[in-house]
C-alpha cells in the first residue's frame, strides 16, 4: 500500500521506503506530472500538472501552497486516513509543489474533525528540519461541506470566513494574502511525490487503466473503509475487497454527494478510473462508493442527501438559498409520500435551473445528484408522487417482517 497503512509512518521509515526527496527542478516536476496524466483527487479532477504550471507562471517566487485536507464530504475518509498514515508523503508533495510553483509558504488546511490526521501532520513536521517547519503552518478547517472548496479555503485563511467567494479572481491568480496560490488536495500531493520519485512511467504502469488512487467504500458492504486501488479495478472488485455485500444492493452512489447514483448490476464491471467514468456520465470525484441497501428507498436516500446539501449551503446565492432548499423540501415531501400535486414536476424543472447559478459549484453538484436520482429511481419517484413506495411494499419485505 502506497497511501494507507495501519500506523503513522515515521520520517525514518518513510525515507527508508522511498529514499530522499526528489531532486527534480521546477520544470522537470511539472513535466513529469503532465506526462503522468494525474488528475486532482479533491473531487473536480483537474489535471495536476496543468494546475502547477498555471501557478508557476504567475508566481514570481511569491506563491503559496495550500495542502487541502479539509475533507468535508460525509462519506469520504480517504484524506484523513492518508494524512494519518503517510504524513511525510503529503509533506513531500507539498514541498515539491512549493518548489515547482515557486512558493515559500505552505499551509496544511486540515479538517478540525480529523484529529488523528492533524496530530500526524503536526508530529511529522516536528520531525522535519527547522527550515521546513519555519515555512509550514497548520490551519484547522472548520467543519462543513463547503469549507474545502478552494476559494472557501483561501477565504478562511485570509479572513476567517470559510465561505466561497466569487471567481475570478481564482486562487491561482490571487489567493492567500493576494498571492498566487496552489490549492491541492492532499492525496494529489502524495501521488505527485511518488511520481516525482519514480517517474511518470511508474504511475502510468500501475493499475489496469493507468494510475492508483484511494476510495471509500460504505453502505451495504461487510467491511466499509478506505481502499487503495489500481485504476481499472471494477466496482465488483471493490465489493470483494470490502468483504462482499451485506444483503443486496441495486444502487450505488459514486463520487460523493456531488456525484451520482448508478445501477449496481449495470456497473458491476465498471472500471473505476476518472476519465472512463466521465465518458459514461459518471463521476469518480473524491472516490466515494456508497451502496444503498436493497430495502432502502432511493427517494428517501436522495432526500437525505439533498437536505444535507441544503443545510451546508453557504447561503450566499439566491438560487442555492431558495432553489436548492425548495428542491430538498419537495423531495422530502415525496420521500414521506405526502407530496403536493406537482412536486415531481417542480423538482425536475428547478433542478434543471440550478446549474451554473452559484458563486461555487454547490448548486451544480446538487443538481447532478438529483438528475442521477430522477433517472435511476424514476419509477420510485413516480410512485411516491402517487403516495406509494415500491421499496417498502415489496412482498419479500412483508414476509421477512
Amino acid at each position, binding site marked *: 500500500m502506497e497511501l494507507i497503512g495501519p500506523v503513522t509512518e515515521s520520517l525514518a521509515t518513510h525515507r527508508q521506503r522511498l529514499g530522499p526527496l526528489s531532486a527534480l527542478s521546477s520544470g522537470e516536476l511539472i513535466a513529469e506530472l503532465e506526462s503522468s496524466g494525474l488528475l486532482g483527487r479533491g473531487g473536480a479532477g483537474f489535471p495536476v500538472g496543468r494546475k502547477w504550471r498555471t501557478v508557476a507562471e504567475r508566481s514570481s517566487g511569491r506563491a503559496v501552497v495550500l495542502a487541502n485536507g479539509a475533507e468535508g464530504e460525509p462519506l469520504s475518509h480517504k484524506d484523513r486516513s492518508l494524512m494519518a498514515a503517510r504524513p511525510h508523503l503529503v509533506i513531500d508533495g507539498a514541498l515539491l509543489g512549493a518548489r515547482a510553483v515557486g512558493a515559500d509558504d505552505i499551509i496544511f488546511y486540515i479538517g478540525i474533525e480529523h484529529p488523528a490526521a492533524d496530530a500526524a501532520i503536526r508530529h511529522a513536521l516536528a520531525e522535519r528540519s527547522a527550515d521546513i517547519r519555519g515555512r509550514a503552518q497548520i490551519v484547522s478547517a472548520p467543519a462543513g461541506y463547503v469549507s474545502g472548496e478552494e476559494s472557501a479555503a483561501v477565504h478562511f485563511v485570509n479572513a476567517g470566513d470559510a465561505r466561497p467567494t466569487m471567481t475570478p479572481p481564482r486562487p491561482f491568480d490571487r489567493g492567500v494574502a493576494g498571492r498566487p496560490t496552489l490549492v491541492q488536495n492532499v492525496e494529489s500531493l502524495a501521488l505527485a511525490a511518488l511520481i516525482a520519485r519514480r517517474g511518470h512511467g511508474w504511475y502510468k504502469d500501475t493499475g489496469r487503466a493507468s494510475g492508483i488512487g484511494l476510495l471509500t467504500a460504505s453502505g451495504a458492504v461487510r467491511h466499509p473503509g478506505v481502499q487503495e486501488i489500481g485504476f481499472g479495478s471494477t466496482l465488483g472488485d471493490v465489493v470483494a475487497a470490502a468483504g462482499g455485500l451485506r444483503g443486496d444492493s441495486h444502487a450505488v452512489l459514486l463520487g460523493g454527494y456531488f456525484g451520482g447514483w448508478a445501477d449496481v448490476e449495470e456497473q458491476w464491471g465498471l472500471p473505476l478510473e476518472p476519465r472512463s467514468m466521465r465518458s459514461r456520465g459518471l463521476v469518480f470525484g473524491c472516490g466515494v462508493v456508497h451502496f444503498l441497501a436493497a430495502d432502502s428507498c432511493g427517494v428517501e436516500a436522495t432526500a437525505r442527501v439533498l437536505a444535507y446539501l441544503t443545510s451546508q449551503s453557504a447561503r450566499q*446565492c439566491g438560487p442555492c438559498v*431558495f*432553489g436548492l432548499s425548495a428542491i430538498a423540501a419537495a423531495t422530502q415531501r415525496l420521500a414521506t409520500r405526502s407530496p403536493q400535486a406537482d412536486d415531481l414536476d417542480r423538482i425536475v424543472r428547478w433542478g434543471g435551473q440550478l446549474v451554473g*447559478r452559484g*458563486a461555487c459549484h454547490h448548486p451544480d453538484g446538487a443538481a447532478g445528484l438529483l438528475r442521477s436520482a430522477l433517472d435511476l429511481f424514476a419509477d420510485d419517484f413516480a410512485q411516491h408522487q402517487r403516495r406509494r413506495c415500491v421499496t417498502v411494499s415489496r412482498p419479500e419485505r412483508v414476509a421477512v417482517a
Partner: protein
Amino acid sequence: MDEIVVDRIRCDGHGLCAELLPERISLDDWGFPIVKRGPVPDHLVEVARRAVDICPVLALHLARSG
C-alpha cells in the same frame, strides 16, 4: 463579444434586469435571474449595458466571452 455575468453573491433578486432584457434574462420562481449563455447579440448590447447600470446592487456585468 460580451456576455452577461451575474455576481450571485451580490444579487438580491430585484429582477429589474429581466424586465429590461427579457430576450436574455428570465427569472426563477424566487425572482433570481436565469441568464442565457453565450454572447449578447449586437442589437441587444445597448440594452444589456442599461441593465448593468440599473441593477440596484451592482451584481450585473458584461464580460468578454470566450
